[in-house]
């Protein structure tokens, strides 16, 4: 049994974000992190590994420096890592990305008892689309927004969150789940894990590796194969600051109430 976890290295948007004058992101100036929801997916895989002895494979599409992130995830307990990397894959939107990742998962080999896990969404694009689109490309059933996963043989019982409650969904392997932060608390790297992470299997799949998969076609991958294009990107204007009030006492509050009343806001 294998658990394949799709992960993404993302710019840390919670810190300083630099934008170029042309409205594109200055990625070089930003720190990169493992996408937070993906860490919950890795943790879920490691928990299932403890219960079942499954092999945990982490797979990411990105530039060569993403190796660092994959080594780190092996230091947390993943058994092997695959980086999908190639010029031909650049500029892919979610549709094209899912084609490529699905082909990589085919190459890793998806068997009857296997599970694919993804984070719900990445903090750079916030699309939440790649997980479901991989499931479609692989013909797998999907359950998104997983907040609890219980495995009993080939059946998974998943608590799937809704805005106003939840659903309990039963699904059989092979299947794909997308994970949210309520699912678990990701563990840290262990000291022995850090020692071992450079001796664990690490592979790079490039275009040559994947090109025989029917999903890999010049018309469905990369910038040219992406159904969506960016028409414009821009930064929103910052709303100008209003007035900073004098003091923070009773008079200040009375003045504020007066201003709100004058504007008919209260």
């Amino acid at each position, binding site marked *: 049994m294998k658990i394949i976890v799709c992960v993404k290295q993302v710019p840390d948007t919670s810190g300083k*974000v630099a934008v170029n004058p042309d409205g594109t992101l200055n990625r070089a100036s930003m720190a990169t992190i493992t996408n937070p929801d993906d860490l919950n997916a890795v943790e879920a895989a490691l928990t299932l590994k403890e219960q079942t002895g499954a092999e945990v494979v982490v797979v990411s599409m990105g530039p060569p420096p993403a190796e660092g992130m994959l080594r780190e995830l092996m230091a947390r307990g993943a058994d092997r890592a695959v980086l999908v990397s190639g010029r031909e894959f650049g500029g892919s939107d979610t549709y094209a990305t899912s084609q490529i990742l699905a082909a990589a998962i085919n190459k890793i080999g998806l068997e009857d008892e296997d599970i694919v896990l993804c984070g719900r969404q990445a903090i750079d694009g*916030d699309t939440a689309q790649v997980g479901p689109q991989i499931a479609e490309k692989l013909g797998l059933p999907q359950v998104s927004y997983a907040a609890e996963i219980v495995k009993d043989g080939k059946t998974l019982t998943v608590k799937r969150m809704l*805005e106003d409650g939840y*659903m309990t969904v039963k699904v059989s392997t092979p299947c794909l789940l997308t994970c949210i932060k309520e699912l678990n608390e990701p563990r840290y790297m262990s000291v022995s894990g850090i020692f071992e992470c450079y001796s664990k299997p690490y592979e790079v799949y490039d275009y040559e590796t994947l090109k025989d998969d029917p999903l890999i076609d010049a018309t469905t991958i990369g910038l040219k194969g992406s159904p969506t294009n960016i028409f414009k990107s821009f*930064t929103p204007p910052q709303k100008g600051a209003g007035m900073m009030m004098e003091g923070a006492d009773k008079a200040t*509050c009375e003045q504020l109430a007066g201003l709100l009343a004058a504007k008919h806001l209260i």
Partner: protein
Amino acid sequence: MSNFNSAAIEEFNGGVWVFCEQRQGEMMSTSYELISEGRKLADELGSKLYGILLGDKVEGLARELGGYGADGVYVCESPLLKNYTTDAYTKVICDVVEQYKPEVMLIGATNIGRDLGPRCAARLHTGLCADCTHLDIDVPKYKEFLRSSSTLAPNMIDNIKEDDRNLKMTRPAFGGHLMATIICPRFRPAMATVRPGVMKKNEFDKARADACEIIKPLFTLSADDMKTEVTEVVKAAKKLVDLIGAEVVVSVGRGISKDVQTGLKLAEELAEVLGGVVGASRAVVDSGWISADHQVGQTGKTVHPRIYVALGISGAIQHKAGMQDAECIIAVNKNAAAPIFECADYGIEGDLFKVVPMMIEAIKAAKAAK
């Protein structure tokens, strides 16, 4: 699927479609928002607007959609569609899309819409833009939008060619630091999930509702098509806070940490005096001090109240993304350098535990004096 070709874009003249989500036989309010927005797009395209409604015995919900602007509603009913499942809903929607070929398809960016949209787009081989906050067809209108909502230089806006007829789907990225407008030029339908609470609902028009056409399209669905089984649907026990529709939102941030109970109580009292509800920053929700339905921001809800009070919220861009369109923003924070003051109409540098009780009294007095 064999004859369907999403790249034959000239064949897609079936109008603008809105997936109208219902849960347990109750229409989600975002469906009305999307119908209203879809009306605008259909008018710009000179085409018709249709809802597509799936469920078990849901036809009774269809006509009301007409009142917000739908010319017709495709109603697909089956006991197998009672609860949302990815497999059944994707199958039926793709079946019907193949037959009627809509040009545009909008889906609410709910936890269900964001499961359904990507699966349908992948099966239909078309583009999908996630969590949109603004939509245009006409370029002159899009330019107007850019002039008011972007920092692009005027010549960069003027240079946009006016003949583009693609759906222009604008959404925040990188936690709201950037906005991107996406198009899907080579495939149809152009698909978008749209953030709930952002598009404005039209006035309900009874005559339009009465005139709304109900269409029962053909589709096939059997239990074999479904690989997942929903064994229960549980609604949250407590009533969820209606942040999106609230006129006043009083939100708390990490600033309440030194006495969480008192901080929340003060926010509730202030919200009550102002006639509003309590919201929270992500930090407060992540700390487990309040439930997630209170969260305002990029990963929470987008609110447009008349008054937004930010108590002890530093104002990360992800939070601002969810509240900066409020009519009047009041911020109380101990730190004069907190970014929240950059978007506040009225800022008070002070301790919320001291300021809020005085604020409550002052507002009570001002209301009594009216």
